[in-house]
């Protein structure tokens, strides 16, 4: 996959809303057939970046191509080959399921619309409810319908903006199965998400915070790139320990995972010494573990906060 052609290749992309600099010098490279995860805290500029990729927003500066077409000048042609699923449900509530699909098919100038729509309804398992108003569907079904709508015109690139927000675990699992099928069929997928398990299902990731790209690569690359050393602390009497540890020397990050605590730091020896002395008289046990993707992301998020508040 590393030598597959680049479907998205942009660099130096900037976007301001008024005096708010929302995306800063963004550079992204996504290869054909890849599932590319786009992560970052709320308001970090994910949606804005995706909109710029499919021509809904014009970048203030920057250059690059999407499907080999210039993102600045050829957005009309890009739109024809991209399936964009918006973060918010954006099909028409007051049209029926079938009418929505038919409208989208018309907009993309598809021939033989009724066959296309019927097939999409069959695949969705919604044939029996084709006359139901889209606004009355449950969240999970809305999301599936949206995906079906943006696949109608057989796009080469899918841009999915938090497609699984508010969807139950089973539906999420099915959704990701589908995405992997599409990817296997050669469709490139760029998907933004807040879920760690979803991030781990992506071939490659990018992490953006306050408009700045903080890290990118495979999940393993992103984790090792932070050069963290992590200890897992377990046992009874964990309450309050997190707060107590946070300010100690060598501790860069404390994250609790249910009944365990992950304590990480860049300076392995300092961290180990701190932990040993702090935990000596307690029943708590500490084990060195490889840092998880979540540790890495929380560390990145903290770092960006310090950077932008300082």
């Amino acid at each position, binding site marked *: 996959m590393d030598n597959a052609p680049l479907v998205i290749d942009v660099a130096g992309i900037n976007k301001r809303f008024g005096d708010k600099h929302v995306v800063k010098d963004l550079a992204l490279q996504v290869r054909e057939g890849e599932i590319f995860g786009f992560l970052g805290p709320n308001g970090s500029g994910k949606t804005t970046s995706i909109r710029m990729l*499919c021509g809904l927003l014009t970048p203030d500066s920057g250059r690059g191509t999407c499907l080999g077409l210039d993102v600045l000048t050829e957005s009309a042609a890009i739109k024809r080959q991209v399936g964009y699923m918006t973060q918010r449900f954006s099909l028409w509530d007051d049209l029926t399921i079938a009418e929505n699909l038919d409208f989208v098919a*018309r907009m993309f100038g598809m021939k033989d619309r009724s066959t296309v729509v019927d097939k999409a309804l069959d695949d969705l398992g919604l044939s029996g409810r084709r006359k139901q108003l889209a606004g009355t569907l449950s969240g999970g079904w809305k999301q599936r319908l949206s995906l079906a709508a943006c696949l109608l015109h057989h796009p080469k690139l899918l841009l999915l903006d938090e497609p699984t927000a508010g969807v139950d675990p089973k539906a999420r699992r099915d959704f990701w199965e589908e995405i992997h099928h599409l990817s296997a069929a050669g469709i490139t997928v760029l998907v933004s998400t807040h879920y760690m398990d979803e991030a781990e299902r992506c071939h490659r990731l990018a992490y953006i915070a306050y408009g700045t790209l903080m890290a990118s690569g495979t999940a393993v690359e992103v984790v090792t790139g932070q050069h963290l050393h992590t200890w897992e602390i377990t046992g009874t009497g964990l309450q309050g320990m997190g707060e107590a540890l946070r300010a100690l020397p060598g501790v860069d990050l404390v994250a609790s995972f249910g009944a365990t605590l992950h304590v990480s730091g860049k300076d392995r020896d300092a961290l180990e010494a701190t932990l040993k002395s702090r935990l000596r008289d307690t029943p708590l046990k500490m084990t060195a573990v490889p840092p998880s993707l979540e540790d890495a992301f929380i560390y990145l998020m903290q770092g960006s906060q310090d950077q932008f508040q300082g």
Partner: protein
Amino acid sequence: MNGFSGFSFSRWIGILLKEFIQLKRDRLTFGMIIGIPIMQLMLFGFAINSDPKHLPTAVVMADPGPFARAYVAAMRNSDYFKIVGSVNEREANDLLERSKVQFVVTFPPGFNRDLVRGKPPVLLVEADATDPMATGGAISVLNHLGIDVFAQDMPGLNRPSAPPFELRVHRRYNPEGITAYNVVPGLLGVILTMTMVLMTGLAMTRERERGTFENLLATPATPVEVMTGKIVPYILIGLIQVTLVLLAARWVFNVPMYGNLLLLYGVVLLFICANLTLGITFSSIARNQLQAMQMTFFFFLPSMLLSGFMFPFRGMPEWAQVVGNVLPLTHFLVLVRGIMLKGNGVNMLWDQVWPILLFMGVVLALGLKTFRRTLD
């Protein structure tokens, strides 16, 4: 930005159909389309129809006589007038000026003599026409009373078809003397301005507010397809409204129609298009439905007040006339009154048509310029 490149008829039909379906399902909007004309017709029509009663009237009796006395008595009995007293000419003028009376009825010197000689004398009526609704019916009542009184006085003769005098009416303060005939055609323009601008204004901002606009923009649909596709359904709606008002004008308010109906519809179509263009332009400037609504009213008020619908156009101060001349409604009123009431033909319309066309052209250019192809 060339909005016309790559126009697809099929996409355009798609947008049009979608708008129709949504309109069909939107009960509130649909209700407004039928409700606004009916409500306005009721409000204004009611005001036209309700004959005012007991209008204060002063009598100047320069030549008292049996006929004049009988006539004043009949006026007093008619419910329509309230005789406040007999006064001299100067007092009468004063009363009228200070809005103490609505009418002054003057029996000039020599009234009786002329009447007896069979030479119809002049009965002078001065009306305070600042409220034309009030004066509208008075004239016909005065004529009728004349016939009645004459028939009673001379029971032997056949009932005359005209009163034995010449009624001379001076409409004071409002020389145009707007009456019911003027109001209903005007209502046509007011209703269209109101609903056409508002409907289209909302149609586009609704998409933006619900987030569906983002989806529409992500498709290859072009600005011209979207704009015109959204306009056409409302042209039909406008024509339905016009037909409603015209039917009411004919059968409820008995407004005559002297001109060509087809010509009238042609003029109406032009006016509808001008308003729709404005609505679409508003909606590409407004961020949400509330703003579109506010812009509509910002336009609607001067249209209502400065177009000659509310106040006689020639009676307005110069600056107001300048503003009024920009508004399509001003010219539309002249056109409709001309066609309906004066039977004007196609060759007499150009003076009013070009200002509407100009307005439309400027607004359309503005609209295409501000239409956002992106979400910026």
